[in-house]
């Protein structure tokens, strides 16, 4: 995904649509994308950016993470330690509550709901115009 903080208005529609899509309820705290605000400064968007180094996979002591189109978790292997979340320099992984597993962007299986709903188009798919 392509993120443009300067366009972000801080409306958090991405957080709402993300939690609605994945959890079936509006629970921004469980969202896989996060907006950080420090008024009046620019908003900061945090989400998995599909980076090249993939420190999360490297950091996982259980080998529970791998990459296939997006980050994938094998829940049976995960011991909920949170090393992946700590290793990510982009703030793209969050330890979820109540599930306790790491939460990260799965591109909605290619549907990119947050991109579709973002009113100021601060979020875009790489390769899209804008």
């Amino acid at each position, binding site marked *: 995904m392509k993120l443009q903080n*300067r366009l972000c*208005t*801080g*409306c*958090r*529609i991405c957080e*709402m*649509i993300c*939690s*609605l899509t994945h*959890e*079936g*309820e*509006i*629970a*921004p*705290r*469980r969202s896989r994308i996060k907006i950080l605000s420090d*008024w*009046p400064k*620019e908003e900061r968007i945090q989400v998995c950016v599909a980076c090249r180094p993939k420190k999360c996979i490297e950091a996982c002591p259980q080998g529970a993470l791998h990459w296939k189109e997006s980050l994938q978790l094998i829940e049976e292997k995960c011991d909920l330690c949170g090393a992946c979340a700590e290793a990510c320099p982009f703030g793209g992984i969050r330890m979820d*509550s109540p599930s306790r597993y790491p939460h990260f962007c799965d591109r909605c299986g290619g549907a990119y709901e947050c991109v579709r*709903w973002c*009113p*100021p188009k601060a979020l875009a798919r790489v390769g899209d115009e804008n």
Partner: protein
Amino acid sequence: MCGGVPPRHSQGLVMKTETGGYIGKVLTINLSFETIRTEDLDSDFAASYLGGKGFAARILYDRLEKGCHPLSPENVLVFSSGPLTGTLVPGSGRCIVSTKSPATERWLDSNCGGFFGPALKMAGFDTLIIHGKAERPSFIAIDDGEVRVLDARDLWGLDPFTVEKKIRSRLGAEFRVASIGEAGEKGVLFASIMSEARAFGRGGSGAVMGAKNLKAIAVRGGHPIGIALPDQFMLTCREAFNEMAIHPDSAGGRQEYGTNTILSCMNEAGIHPVRNFQKGFFQGHSEVHEEAIRRYYVRHKACQGCPIYCSKIAEVTEGKYKGFVVEGPEYENVWSFGAQCENADLGAIIAAESLCDSYGLDAISAGNVIGFAMECAEKGILKESEIGFPLRFGDDEGMIKAVHAIGRQEGIGKLLGKGVKRAGEILGAEGFAMHVKGLELPAYDPRGSSGIALAYATSDRGACHLRSWPIGAELLSPEERMDPFSEEFKAEFVKTQQDLFTVVNSGVICLFATFSLTLRHVARFLHTTTGIEAFASPEEVLKCGERTNNLVRLFNLREGLTAAEDTLPARFLKEPLSEGPSRGRVVNLKPMLEEYYLVRGWDEQGIPEPQKLEELGLIHG
């Protein structure tokens, strides 16, 4: 007193609701006894009053002692969200505060954008009710359902921005804070409650909070908001977003210029009040207009869940006001510190609004009372020696000094902090004290808009443009134009719009979102979010608004309101505008008001008829 006094809500707030949208919990805190009580939300109560303003109306009607002093511990402060708050419904970032206003000594509900409302819900409560007075400066912290009243002695005296920072560093960065500044602590009758540079602005709720020794409320949580009919909800929201994305208001001017998008239109219509409503056409418009203001914008800013992002971050980068930053400036304040004071320095306007935010002052009333003082000075009623500095129309430095004096409650600020009505009485200047029921006026001269004249006169909280806004239909709408000078059809229009706006303020969503949508959309939002069958009917939803408006009327009557207060300042009724497109006009209020009472089902004294109350289920026959 009234045709029939409705009984107190019999069931209280019991029985858990199984519907979506609501959290289902109401929190009551008594600061005097430090007691905390949680109740389940009653589903019938929810279906009758929706949320937000509706909830508050019922709660204040039931719990507030008649005639209590607004700044006494007996006054009750209600923060309320609604079923739509914090959902994907556009403009859902809002919250209502309700109390007995210290400015009007009547009903007050005041509405704030930003993130506080959704955060209150996610902290676990639809509604927060505050009674009593804390022994020492305190603040309330609600963390995922856990409620504490904490010491705020170290926060007393600080501005809201600093308070938020301190609370966040103490409790956690996710906390959303609503707090008061110096003005609220010192009892300025138009003190606001601030939350992240947005305000519960009008009517003095900040002074009520200050009188309770309550500096701030901090909320956070992960409580999810359920959706009753998810598929239909998503379709409804998507449709609404699509409508808003092509509407000339929500996707055009309002995004580009913020609320200032209508500045030129209002001035050209001759209803942009100048010099404390002495004129309706601003010569300084060549310097103060939406294009000029846009040059100060740094970026767009949105409240939670809003695709319009009408909020702007503006900064003054040069001149004597360099360095002032504001979320705004909003249309109303561009007027109140602009044309109202005949000031054409945009830097000063931004500085004044920014200072109001820091002191926790309603920037509409602050500009009003300063313009009023300027007219007093011009007429020799207030002498420069009494004011302490030169305060003349067009003098930006005097205007800024007056904001400081009010915020700090020093010198002339003590008088001006009482608001236009009381200052006018003290100075014997009632003739040009511009207020309705004690609330200062917004930025539209009613001599050029009959509709807004009736809206001001009949608004439950005094002069207000957000109870009904006929300006849109009279001067802006391309589709449903009404003659702004005619009295015809205005009663029915204002009544219906008041009921709709109360629905919106009970939902609780933003009025601006509904400018490009209809009652039908709002009803579908309510129905698909909550699953309450009655909300499938727009007529039933509108009836909820009418029910609340009638209950608020009963509240006001109980507090001593009479039909004589449903009026306008003498200037609008007697002094014709001298220039501009509305020149020569005065307001012809009487026929509109008579018709309004009639369509409302109220008698000639403005008292709801028993049949009306029975129809709305407020009394049982």
